[in-house]
């Protein structure tokens, strides 16, 4: 029973275009959401987060949107760059330090 789901295993976009990665969750008690990025042979690295009291958080080219009524969040990358090619994990916090991760979406940005 997966509480955090990333239904698209992979996404391919052209350099310079927008990448949109999606994530759905089932537990309305989650109060904090994060996105992590993972390159091959490396551990995940923190990218951006959002509190449940907000609906948008922006950091440079990365924006996370939260739709609590739909229990859905998305990560927008604009413009996409080849260096953004990685696996992106959505995670939800169910308590201090307790993260539940989605399955990941592999993003490929083509030059």
């Amino acid at each position, binding site marked *: 029973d997966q509480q*955090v789901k*990333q239904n698209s295993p992979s996404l391919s976009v052209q350099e310079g275009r927008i990448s949109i990665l999606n994530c759905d969750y089932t537990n309305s008690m989650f109060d904090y959401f*994060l996105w*992590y990025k993972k390159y091959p*042979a*490396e*551990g*995940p*690295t*923190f990218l951006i*987060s959002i509190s449940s009291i907000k609906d948008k958080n922006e950091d440079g080219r990365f924006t996370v949107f939260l739709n609590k009524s739909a229990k859905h969040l998305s990560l927008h990358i604009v413009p996409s760059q080849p260096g953004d090619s990685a696996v992106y*994990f959505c*995670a939800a916090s169910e308590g*201090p*330090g*307790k*993260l*539940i*991760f*989605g*399955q*990941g979406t592999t993003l490929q940005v083509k030059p």
Partner: protein
Amino acid sequence: EAGVAQSPRYKIIEKRQSVAFWCNPISGHATLYWYQQILGQGPKLLIQFQNNGVVDDSQLPKDRFSAERLKGVDSTLKIQPAKLEDSAVYLCASSLRIDEKLFFGSGTQLSVL
């Protein structure tokens, strides 16, 4: 700033054998985590330490897995005996405090044959 160090990088063992993984967190980080990432899935929390005390080990298969964090710094995760389904990447992470963001190591890739 040095990151989270893990060793070994890779390990191949036969089922029913034992294996141990080591983690050295970022200096000063009080909270340490072990995650298991099976191929095609996201990381799953196995155990969480605050200094040298266990905060949460509800997902740790305690009949075969054990972990310790001596002196609140380094940690080891042991599997004894290993099963085929234990094949995964074992990730160690640390955070300054329990509610701060996690920094992950590169992981240990375990293959159980």
